[in-house]
Structures are given as C-alpha cells and as structure tokens.
C-alpha cells in the first residue's frame, strides 16, 4: 500500500514536472510581432457560382488574432447591386471580440451570416461578376512596454551601471499598429526624451491614434504626437502615410544610471476592407 502511494506521488510529480501547453501559454508573450483581425468566408458560403433567383448565404469568419480586444466592430458588405444580389442585412455589429490572452490563447472567433437572394441575369448575359467589399471597422488598443537604461550623468564615461541604447527597434506588439522604433535622448539639464515611431503594418488603415497612458517607472511622462493640430495626445493619420511619432519627455531625479520600465498605451480605430466577387451565372 505504501508502495502504491509512493508510485502515485511519484507519477504526479513526474507529470507535474513536464512542460505542457499550459506552461507554454503562461510563458508566451502575445504582445509581440504583427497580428491583426482575420476575415474570411467559409468555403462555399457564398458559393463560387450563384444561379438566378436563388437564396444564398455568406458566412464570414472573424478571428481576433491580436493580443488586444477589438470593440465596436461594424462589418458591412458594400458594392452589390440590389438588382442582382439583395442581402437581408448589409451591416452587422459586434460589441466585443476578445484578443489572445492566457485564458484565450487562440483569440476569439465569431461567425456572422449574411443571407441573400439573387436576381436575374441581364437578358442573355453569360454571367454577372459582382465585385464587392467586406468592410470592417473596430477600435482596439496597443501596449508598449520595455526596460530602458537611463543614465542621467551625461558626461560620466565610467559608470558601473547599465549601458544606454540610443536606438532600439521592435517587430511589433501583437497588433497591426506597432511601435517600431524608440530613440532615447538625454539632455544634460532638461531630462529624458523618448521618441516612439508608430507604424501601421497591417492590411487596413488607422484613422486616429489616441495616447492613453505613458509612464517611465511610476512617473508619468509628458507626451505629444508630432505634427498634431489641436489635441497633442491624439493624431489623425493620412491614408498614404500610416505612421506617427510620439515624443515623451520627463525630468530625471537620479544622478546614476539605472534601468526602468517605459510603458505607453494607445487606442486606435482601424478599418479593413477586403475585395471579393460574387458570380451570378446562367
């Protein structure tokens, strides 16, 4: 009996020591790299060919592969002529689609349906190819966190502390919008200036970026976007230039070099459009 208890304890111990998926998830940093919302139609919904005067369904699979929740999702089908394809609803709304996290490592997935009825072909036309767009807008967030070495003593060449990196580059923070580069500039008497270069690397468009929070350790930083008009904490991006620079400044109290965490949070609105074609055939 004692031996059996020993075996059970040993088994539990061995099993408990193996690295399972749960541990991987725990260790995995979702807020890295490029990730975005994925929109795709289920196979055969809509069918490749639609016949005149028939009902059809379009099932759109929406998968949030970002490390952040997406809120206020509006999804619409644009560009179909009612004469050929009449949809019961052309627009649908989702309040929230959760992003990837420890509890939901794959991100939330939703299916939305658009049902429709096809019309007649024009006279004896062979087919009617109908280009259309899946258009989606949503609001999401972006968190940037990194450990920086700060050395306020500008002229001290020999310092036993950390080594300052003037410029750091990043691959992304798990969203289509990403902080791609950080420049650290120390002014001898004025303190620290951090320059964050944000870039939209996704397939959609960012319209507005709002700064929510910017901290260096526990200290709030004074930040503003470059080239903004009214509100320095918000920027509207142009269609052809999907990037922005945020400049954050703070005074430094310490005289020695030290490492601390810079954390900056944003929210932004995002627009995605995908081109598809419905084909009405004889």
């Amino acid at each position: 009996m004692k031996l059996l208890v020993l075996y059970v304890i040993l088994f539990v111990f061995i099993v408990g020591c193996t690295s399972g998926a749960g541990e991987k998830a725990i260790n995995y940093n979702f807020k890295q790299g490029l990730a975005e919302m994925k929109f795709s139609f289920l196979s055969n919904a809509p069918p490749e060919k639609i016949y005149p005067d028939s009902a059809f369904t379009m099932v759109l699979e929406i998968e949030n592969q970002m490390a952040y929740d997406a809120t206020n999702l509006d999804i619409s089908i644009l560009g179909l002529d009612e004469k050929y394809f009449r949809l019961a609803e052309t627009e649908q709304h989702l309040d929230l689609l959760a992003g990837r996290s420890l509890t939901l490592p794959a991100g939330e997935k939703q299916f939305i349906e658009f049902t429709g009825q096809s019309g007649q072909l024009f006279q004896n036309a062979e087919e009617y190819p109908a280009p259309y767009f899946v258009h989606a807008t949503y609001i999401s967030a972006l968190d940037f966190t990194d450990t920086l070495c700060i050395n306020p003593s500008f002229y001290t060449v020999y310092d036993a502390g950390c080594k300052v990196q003037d410029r750091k580059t990043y691959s992304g923070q798990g969203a289509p919008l990403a902080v791609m580069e950080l420049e650290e500039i120390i002014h001898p008497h004025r303190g620290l200036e951090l320059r964050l270069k944000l870039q939209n690397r996704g397939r959609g468009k960012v319209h507005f970026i709002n700064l929510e929070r910017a901290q260096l350790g526990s200290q709030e930083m004074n930040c503003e976007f470059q080239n903004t008009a009214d509100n320095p904490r918000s920027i509207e991006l142009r269609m052809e230039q999907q990037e922005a620079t945020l400049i954050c400044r703070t005074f430094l109290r310490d005289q020695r070099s030290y490492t601390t965490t810079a954390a900056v949070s944003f929210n932004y609105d995002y627009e995605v459009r995908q081109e598809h074609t419905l084909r009405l055939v004889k």
Partner: protein
Amino acid sequence: MPGEQTRPPWANLEAFDKEERRREEQEKRKRPDEESRTTNSDDRDQPPAKSRATTSPTTPSSGSGLLNSINDPGFYLFIIGLLTFIFNEKFNNVTLAVLLGTIFMFYTAIFIFKGKGIIITAIFWVWYVFFGGVTDPTALMYIILPITLVGMLAHGVYNAISRRGTFLEGSSEELLGLIPILFFFLDLGLLPFLTKLFNFPITPLLDNFIRFTPWWALLGLFTTRKEGTIISLAKIVGVAYIFCLLTFGVAPEAYAASTSLLPGPEQFIEAKQELEQQLPQRENPFISNLACIFSVNYATVQVCVEQRQEISELRYICEKVEQQEPDTPAFEQCLAEQREKKQQKLVQGINDPTITEFTTAEFTISESIFPKTAYQGITNYPTTFTVDNPRQQQFQVKFSCRFEQGTEKIAGEIIGDNPITIQDASPAGRTVICKPGSVLQGRYKLVYEAELQGLQTTSRLQRLFIGTKDEVWKESWVPVITSRHFPSHRYSSIGPAEFARINFEFGNPTENPIIEGTGNLFLVSTIENVGTGKLAAVKSYHLQLDGFDIEDQSCLQGTTVTLPPVQMVRKSILPLTSCQIRGVPPELQQPENYLYREFEAALRYDYIISRSIDINIEKVSS
C-alpha cells in the same frame, strides 16, 4: 556558304540594288566610249558640218536626258499607279480593280523585281483570281504558306539546275513575290476590310490611309533605281505626302478579334465602299498642307490644316447631303449648324463582354449553286438568310431585292413568304429567291435587302453614389471602388454588339462614374450603329432613370427620331438630347459608404441588312 544561309530575305534586295547600280555604272562607263566611237566614225564618213547635225540625236540633250532619267520601271508604276488611283476612285468597279491589281502585281514582279517572286505571284493569282480563291478561315495558313513554299522551292531548284546561283539564294529571292501580293490586297481594300472585321475605330490616321493612299504609286516610287532630278523630286513629294497623311491620328485599338473568311475581291471593294461612305468627305490632307504652307506662317500650319479639313467636311455635308446651294444664307446657316453638331459630345458605348451571343442576321450566297452567269429570263437568284436570335425577340423581316446597272435600278420580286416573323432562338436559315422584275441583259449588281422591323436592344450603365463625403474618405475610397467596379476604366454604357444601341452616361462630368452630392448632374445619350447594315428607323427610346429629377422628361424617352442619311451607316453616332439631372433619388443621396447601381436604356428600331453580288446575264441565242 554558311554566311549566306543566315542572310535575311531583304538582304537580297540590297544585293539586288548593288548589282543594278554596278551594271548601270558599267553602262555609263561604256557609253562615252561608244559615243566617241560613233562620233569618230561619223567624222570619218561625213563632212564636219553635217556630222554635227546627224550626231545631235545621240548626244545627250536636255529632253532626252529627262526621258532617260525617268526611264525606270518603278517610276512608270508610280505614274500609272497615281493615274489609276485618281480615276479608279470614280469607278469602284470590282472587275476593273482586280484587272488593274493583276497588271500592277505582275508588272512589279517582272519589271521591278526582275522576275524574282514571279512564281509565288503567279500561283497566287491563279488561285485567288482565276479560281476565285477559297473561303476557308485557315486559308492564309493552308494556302498562302504552301504557295510561298512551292514558289521558293521551284525558284531554288531552278537556280541550282541552271547554275545561276545557290538554291538558298533562289528560294529567298522568291519571297519578294509576297510584296506585290500585299500591295494587291492593300489596293483592293485590305485596310477597310480589316477595319470592318476587327471593329477598329476609324481614327483620322486610318481614315487617311484608307482614302488617300495610292499604294501602287508609292511602291513604284520607292522602288525606282535611277537617280534623277525628277525621281528625287517625286520621292520628296512622296515622303511629304506620307508625312501629311501621318499628320493626323493615332494608332487604332482593336476592340475585339474574330475569325472570318478570307474574302474575295468583292468583299474588299464592298468594305472599302461601305467605309468610305461613312467617312466624312474631307479635303486630301496633302492639299490642305500645301495650301496652308504657302498661305500662313509656319507656326499656324497645323491649325490651318485642321480648319481646312473641318471646313471641307462641313461643306460636303451641306452641299451633298443637305442639298444646300453653296454661298447662300441657307448654306452658311447649315455650316453653322453642322459645326455646332460636331462640337457636341458624342457618347460612344462599349460592347458588353458578358453577352457573347447576340442577335445576328446575314445573307449567305452559295458559290456552288448561285448562278453568277445566267441566261435571260430563265433564272431566279437564291440566297440564304440566317437569323440568330438568342434573346428570342419577336420581329419581322421584310425582304427585297434589286438589280443595279450603273444608275439604273430594277426592282426584283421575292418569291415566298414576305415578310416573315422571327421569334425562335435557334439559328434559322431561310431561302430567299429573287426574281428579276423585267428582262435583263449584261452585268448587274444584285442587291438583297432584309429590313428587320421592331428590334430592341437594351444597354446598361453603372454608377457609384457616394453622397457627401470628406476628402479623407474620398482619398481612401474613390480610387479603390472605381478601379474595382470599372476595371477597364471605361465609364459609358455597355450593350450587346448587335445592329444598333443606345449609349448613355450621366454624372458631372458625364464620364465620371462617381456621383457625388444630391444632384446637378448631366445626362447625354446617343444612338450608335454598331452593325454592318443601315439603321432604317428609330421607333422609340427609353432611359430607365426612375426617381431622378430630370429637367426635361423628353431626355428620358422619345418616339420616332429623324435619321440623317449619312449617319445611318456603320459606326455612325447620332446624338440624342442632353439635359440636366436636378436630383438623384432620396435613397441614393446619402449612403453611409457608397452604393453601386445599374440603369437601363432600351432602343426600338428597324435595321437593314444587305448583301450584293455581281451577276452576268447573257442573251439566249435562238
């Protein structure tokens, strides 16, 4: 020799030129000796005073020098080709055109190319003219290519046997025979035929080439071998002439390619005549250029030429079509009206790529049973009328026929049901027999006509309604939706490529497919003859723009439209009224993003299909 094997065919032309020049130089070198010999012998035989008188004809004088300098086969072809070009324009007779083409073709092969290419030319002529060619679509591959190969082989073998050169030299020289064949086709009307076949838009450049190019004359001019003042001058004029033809227009663009039969001379001439009828009758650009060069300063020559061309075209319409007496107030008013019409924007439609089967009708004449040569009073003339009616339209076909000899037109009688009603979809062939209305004798042009009454063709137009949007939205969306919904970047209405159709567009400007705001748009429409026949009548038209606030409702629909005679033929466009759209329907005024909508317009009309053939009626001997 290996080096010779890689020589291109035209290298023979160069070699041929060099050889000719070498011979001429040798002759020139010989000539003074001969002359001196002649003079010396004269001196010996005759007294000095008389010798001067008798030697004068052999001494090069200004007159004989002139004749000698133009004594060139190419120059002769230039002169005769030019004369026939000027006078043949008046006849447009198939037999005459083929006869002249044959003469020029053989003349070129024999005298200009010195027999090089004569075999190809001869075989081609026997096949095409003597045997009447074949009407197989793959004839170019299966006939022209073998003819060329046989010619090359024969010439090569002849060279090898007679030791006049290598086999390769002979066979490549034979390729020169393709040049007179090409010019034979060009002169008959290859360009108009291709224009008709491939639906080329008639650009000013093409128009000039079709009507003002004396093909044989140009070939003759640029194959002259002698260097003389007159020939050089003629060449300069020739180059200037070509330059003048090229002054206008751009290269044509093919709308659609289709397979067709290799046509006989009648079809070439027919295409040429038909196309020339449609083309505005303008002054020859060369004459316009000449007149302008000497009358205005250099900077304004182009403007002057364009003005002269336009004026000559308008004068032709007013004088010949509108029958107005020149230099009268009515004539001046007609000119002003025509000028205004010309400046009006004419919407040209697009062939609907999704409609591959459309209504067609044609006469076909069976070469095997049609009596091209018949005897007086005992022959009727059968043809087959075929209709393809995939949309199952219901319309009537009224047949007629006539026999034309010069200006005389003798009506024929159609034997059998006439008119007939068409309503089935499947292609139906019907025999139509024409019986002469009176006793005929000689050569006639038999013309069959079918008037298709009550046809309807519908066109459609797409537009994108965006309402009122800010610049950021427009910058983001307009290029994307425009290219997605209009990938061909053509924004007019589309319609089946059959007979005639109504073209329309609206917007601001009308060719802009993006409809912004709630109104202030313009609508223009035209009727276009896209078939090969004549638009006989427009019964009605209707543009389906429900819910639009239109300034003038007559813009949307109308009944009988008067057709000017010159605008009834192929490719002609007749403008309908244009008007303002004050407002778009409420549901299209403020879309959240954009709306894509299609609008239709229908045209009801009558259309005439015709087919003509030359016949010969001989007297019955008792």
